[in-house]
């Protein structure tokens, strides 16, 4: 989970998007907007892509027409899985506690 760094949110969104297959920048923005309702700006997107690539959590594939797709590495898939499991655990506890509230 530490591998996702302090800018966890865009990184997690990107990794969740790449979990369904390699995507380039534009496809990532559209996919994230669709499944998370979050509009990532190009600066935020590439900042997160650079950090993830630097940490070996994603890798670039050969591109065409000035578009370069990215895919998850095995380490990236494991980091995303661990993060999302933890988030699910926190969410479940939070929701359970909220049931008894009000």
């Amino acid at each position, binding site marked *: 989970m530490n591998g996702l760094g302090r800018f966890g949110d865009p990184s997690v969104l990107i990794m969740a998007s790449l979990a369904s297959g390699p995507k380039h*920048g*534009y496809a990532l923005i559209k996919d994230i907007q669709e499944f998370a309702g979050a509009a990532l*700006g190009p600066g935020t997107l*590439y*900042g997160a892509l650079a950090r993830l690539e630097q940490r070996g959590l994603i890798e670039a594939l050969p591109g065409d*027409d000035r578009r370069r797709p990215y895919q998850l590495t095995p380490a990236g898939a494991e980091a995303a899985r661990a993060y999302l499991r933890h988030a699910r655990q926190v969410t479940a506890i939070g929701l359970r506690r909220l049931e008894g509230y009000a």
Partner: protein
Amino acid sequence: VRRLLALYPARWRQRYGTEMTRLLEDLAPFSPATRLRVAADLARGAIGAHLSKEFGMIGEAGRAIRRGAVVAVLTWIPVATLIVLSNVVFPSRGDHDGPWLLGGYLIIFAAFACAGLTRTSTEGRIAAGAVAGIILGVLTIATFAAVDNIFLQIVSQQQAKITGFHQSGMTSMRAYIDSSLVPAGIFFSIEFAIFGTLLAAAGGDLYDRRTRMRRGDRPQPQPHPVKTP
């Protein structure tokens, strides 16, 4: 909007510039509001890229700035203590703050020399000393501003301040003190930057000499000239 990519470091543009340009083309056309949002996002991203380890202020420039900032903050702690002690705890009505001043300058000069005590180039040491000097100058004057305003009753008893206040023609001691802080801040920053530069370079020279002595002062073996037929 695409022109904002020029704000990114060269190495970043080399690696991501083409795909980011293509992405901006894909996202266009932008409404005025979106254009503004994308521009702000790119500017923020460019700052992040400059601060990143991989693409930004890596190597000597980044290390020198960090080292200078650390030296300045660490030096500011005893300097601020001296300022409080000499102006508030043990205030002097006369102009007898010579020992405090000497102590303060000794601490500052020693710290500047320490900024150069590292294995790096002369330019890196000079940059670290200059950064330490500028930051320390700003911190010092900020401390004076805080002390002078919080403890105005005590500080305004100093003879130098009373004389200066009467000569200034101002009607408020606080206004006189505050107005004199700005030129003093500029003076401190320039003075400390100059001393920081010189002393960090001197400290670095000392470091190099000691390193050479520890190695036994062995001259580096010269490569044999290659004979060409």
